[in-house]
């Protein structure tokens, strides 16, 4: 991730092969309180995310903040991977949870003799 503190802005360049658009926007959302956020697609290769402080609050442009936001992009990307990979399971889970039994399957084995005593 090529990123830098550029004057009064924090700039992040996120490879679109590594970061999803959803993750970038979901992460940026959490910084809208204190920053004006600008997101651009550069050469169809990078999301350029620029955060410019809206308020004169200490530490909005600092190394700590820079690292925090960099980590946040990675975290939101991980969350996005889980969310997309497990979408079908979540749908199935919800469908089963709110069904009236029509999606239930018979578990393997016998209810009456799960340990196999009668064999």
């Amino acid at each position, binding site marked *: 991730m090529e990123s830098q503190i550029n004057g009064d802005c924090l700039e992040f360049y996120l490879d679109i092969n590594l970061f999803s658009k959803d993750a970038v926007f*979901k992460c940026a*959302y*959490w*910084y*809208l*309180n204190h920053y004006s956020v600008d997101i651009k697609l550069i050469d169809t290769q990078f999301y350029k995310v620029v955060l410019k402080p809206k308020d004169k609050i200490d530490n909005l442009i600092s190394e700590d903040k820079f690292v925090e936001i960099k980590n946040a992009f*990675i*975290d*939101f990307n*991980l*969350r996005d*991977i*889980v*969310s997309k*990979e*497990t979408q079908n*399971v*979540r749908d*199935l*889970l*919800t469908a*089963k*949870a*709110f069904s009236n039994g029509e999606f*239930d*399957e018979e*578990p*393997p*084995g*016998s209810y009456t*003799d*799960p*340990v*196999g005593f009668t*064999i």
Partner: protein
Amino acid sequence: MSTLETTNQSKKNRKFLDYDSYSSNAANESKYFLLPFKFHRLKSGNEVLVNEVGDFLIAENGSANRIIRREIDKIKDHKLYADLISGFFISESPIDPLIDVLATRYRTKKLFLNYFTGLHIFVISLRCEHTCQYCQVSRVTQNKDKYDMSRYHIDKGIELMFKSPNPNLTMEFQGGEALLAFDNIKYAVERAKPIAKELNKNLTIVICSNLALLDDEILEYCKLHHILLSASLDGPKFIHDTNRHKPHASSYDLTIQGIKRAREVLGHDRVSALMTTTKLSLDYPVEIVNEYFNLGFQGIFLRNISPYGFALRTDKAKYDTGKFIDFYKTALNRILEINRSGHFFTEDLARIFLIKMLTPFNVGFVDLQSPSGLINGVIVYNYDGTVYATDESRMLAEQKDYTFKLGTLDDSYEDLYFGDKAQEISEVWINESLAGCSECAFQQYCGADPVHNHATQGDMYGFRPTSDFCKKNMEIIEYLMELLHSDDETRKILERWAFIK
């Protein structure tokens, strides 16, 4: 090993899988599959992983990354691997063989949806003899005809209440000061009870009051009809009397006297108390907890002031959420001290979170549900015949903000509960689909509160980065997680709060 082989051979047709199957190649190569889960970085430097039904696992920093990159090794990381499998964070097959168990648990967490509206609040009168500094509604002392609920509207409210499919209904009388309209309470109780019996519904009746007007006649009536009392008590006398001013009398003295008398006549557990944290209260967390403990209550609900109605009309009454959190943590630590000295004494907000975090169940608490508890769990029939989605909604209405007005008591049940307004609100009452909440690890413990969003941020959808609701809940949940992992004694105390009914 030979024993295992022999056992396998002699019991090949057992319903258990063969031993080898528990160390399948797929698993050895760490080709496990992800199940839905979320994670959050804790201030302690660890990460918390939370699955789809609210079970959580605290792991070292970087664990989520390793799990997602399939770097957890079944042998080298056997403990974490076992925790992840048994906790429904990962699975060795694309569809977990126990998915039906997980689905049942998910259904259990959303069980509050099965029954629909249970709490029906009747604002029986808007009149009040107190002039509390933070009053959330209004203070009218005269004109009984204008500010008391008419019997026509009481009948209509009862009719609507019994249309709810919920077999357990709570009829709660609020004010103003509800006891100023005690004749109407009696009328409503005597109308509702036979209908409940006929329809085979369990009806719980609660009167919310400052208890100043409580007398023997009222207590005898409450005893006869098994009515519960809910009082307001903000803490020691100097706090209570400052917050809750009653002209020419001490509100505290009257409340304490009322609690004592109610306990004598109705029974110790038939009267509860609720506190509101004002700016003044923020400096006295220990004193407030001690007051409740010394009065023999089994717990306290540390509630921040509501951002509604008259309550925060002036900047003087407002305070920062961070200050409330400091107050809360100090008070909670005092409560834990009380428990360590051998007494059972809970904090109710913590208890709600702990039940969600540590048990398979949920709590039907209006502010911490998804879908939200408004309409689904509670409805308010106002003194003037209007109907609101929650108690807070009618407080907004006192400020001429009718955003959450569902209609009037002359409207049909269907129009009120499923009408256009209800549908509009329903679009923003699921935290699973709200920006900022959808990825939140604490989503299962929290809820959606469109009324709070509207009151504090100007729209029902809300904006999480500046939401005090979000900040408060996140901080408290994280603090509880820290406490659960601090020492065995603290963990056992908190577990007891969650497990004991």
